[in-house]
């Protein structure tokens, strides 16, 4: 970690001190404000930063899911032309090709569920769901996995606080595999 900081600091210094490139640049970027970029900035960190206002429960999400998601993900998320959204518990040690990786047994952060639904789903109408609908659908998928209850309310605060079962299942190979 310390070494990584040293390396990126050195690269940063090298790039910023390059000088000549700066002089060669036409400097045609148009300044904008973060507010101007609000509709584009879909980024949500695992700490929940970037989650919009809104709320929803699994009970509410069941209706959204049936209408918008079930055609591909199957009844109650049981899978179809798109992935099954729960299960696979205990299969990760069966190894690649056998293990079933789902939101419940593999995804490390609930914020990723919200983020992925918001940016990419439903497949044929992405970005059509309201924030409340996304919170509700996120809650429904988490409930299908037994991670939260039917009436737990998902909000910007609570999504980031959900402890996913496989939260500690990943090892970073960057900057180097050990």
């Amino acid at each position, binding site marked *: 970690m310390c070494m990584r900081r040293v390396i*990126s600091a050195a690269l940063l210094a090298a790039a910023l001190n390059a000088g000549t490139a*700066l002089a060669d640049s036409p400097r045609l970027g148009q300044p904008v404000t973060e507010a101007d970029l609000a509709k584009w900035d879909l980024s949500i960190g695992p700490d929940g930063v970037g989650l919009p206002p809104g709320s929803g429960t699994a009970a509410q999400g069941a209706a959204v899911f049936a209408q918008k998601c079930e055609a591909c993900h199957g009844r109650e998320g049981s899978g179809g032309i798109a992935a099954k959204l729960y299960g696979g518990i205990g299969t990760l040690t069966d190894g690649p090709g056998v293990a079933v*990786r789902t939101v419940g047994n593999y995804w490390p952060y609930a914020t990723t569920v919200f983020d992925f639904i918001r940016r990419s789903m439903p497949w044929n109408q992405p970005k059509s769901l309201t924030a409340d609908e996304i919170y509700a659908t996120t809650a429904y998928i988490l409930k299908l996995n037994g991670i939260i209850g039917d009436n737990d309310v998902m909000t910007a605060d609570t999504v980031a606080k959900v402890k996913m079962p496989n939260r500690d299942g*990943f090892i970073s190979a960057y900057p180097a595999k050990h």
Partner: protein
Amino acid sequence: MTDIKRRRRSREPEIAAGNGLLDRRALLGRGIVFAGAVGTGASLTGAAAEPLAVDPWSLEPGIIIPAYGTPSRFEGKVVRTLTNPKGTPRTAQARTPHHLLDGTITPAGLHFVVSRSGIPDIDPAQHRLAIHGLVKQPMVFTLDALARYPKVSRICFVECGGNSAPLFSKDPAQADVQAIHGMLSCSEWTGVRLSTLLEETGIDPKAKWFLAEGADSATMNRSLPLAKALDDAMIALYQNGERIAPSQGYPMRLLAPGYEGNMNVKWLRRIKLIEAPVMAMNETREYTILRFDGKAWQFNLPMEVKSFITSPSPGLTLQGPGYYEISGLAYSGHGRISQVMVSADGGRSWAQAALQGPVLSKALTRFRMPWRWDGQPAVLQSRSWDEAGNVQPTRAELLAQRGEPRTSPSVEAFPMTHMNPVTSWAIDSKGEAKHVYA
């Protein structure tokens, strides 16, 4: 007389390894003379040619030159294979037919594609690239503006993290080069260094990573280390001299040389400097390497050193014993290829292949090896080394690290990413090639 004999003898290619591999120096323009008949009695020259007739295309003018050229109608089989030709709501892949190509540059129309939600129809006049987050001044760039920046060109491969996944199978997948290794392509990319644009926006010292996001309907996003932005990442605008193909990200993509394909975000619309990865779906659920202890490697950024033989290979049947050139591709996300060894006896003996120059960092390198096939069964393999000291693992070495596959999934499945073991093609006595484990 003695001199001539001696010279002839000196032009006989030396055997470099078992089963007929010849010294690579035989390829260096000296021609090859087989002094003695090979064991099966193959002659040194082909059968006598028929007298030549004048062909019809020599007797009338050809067609009018088209404004944009396409390959000969006789090359209709040289196409990508499609996993989702009807546009079902799921990811679609198109694979490059390496067994039907030679050289190192992939034509844009044959470049492999992975798309989550089709190919967007982007109006370049409306498209914008935003750079924001932990910068001093967030900025938006038009395509016209980027065209005025200092540009660089580099030849660089792009490989899907899931390329060669069929090698993680209990039984050898009965598939060809295209199915196994076709999610790899190489182009000349031209564009603006990301570091040039970051000098303009300024960088907040807190920034350690950046997020790249596409304008496609899936709005695919990945986190990359900021060090890559300051090293060799590029906003690519041109591919092989023309504007980037729609399936490759028109009008612009991120090029992160050597990093897994998914990080080379297409249809790039936004870069945000951040402190830590956002843990996107494509860096948690996807592109992570599950281990048998249930843990998974994440942020497996560079593609490892790899090589495979494109000719002969499944579907390309040898036409009788005699001289052939074994040819293939080698590459590494860590730099230049330093050496490729080839075996014709399943790895018992090896000979060094000739590397076709220029050998470029993070680009495909073509290797060639002269071979005198005696008509008997043979097992062809290639193995590559890069300048950083990495060695392509044998299958046994790779599985010792990753674990033994317990199933034989569909050839279109992705049980494992970053698969770079030695690939083996068995040639039978009919000259047919087949994927085997050796």
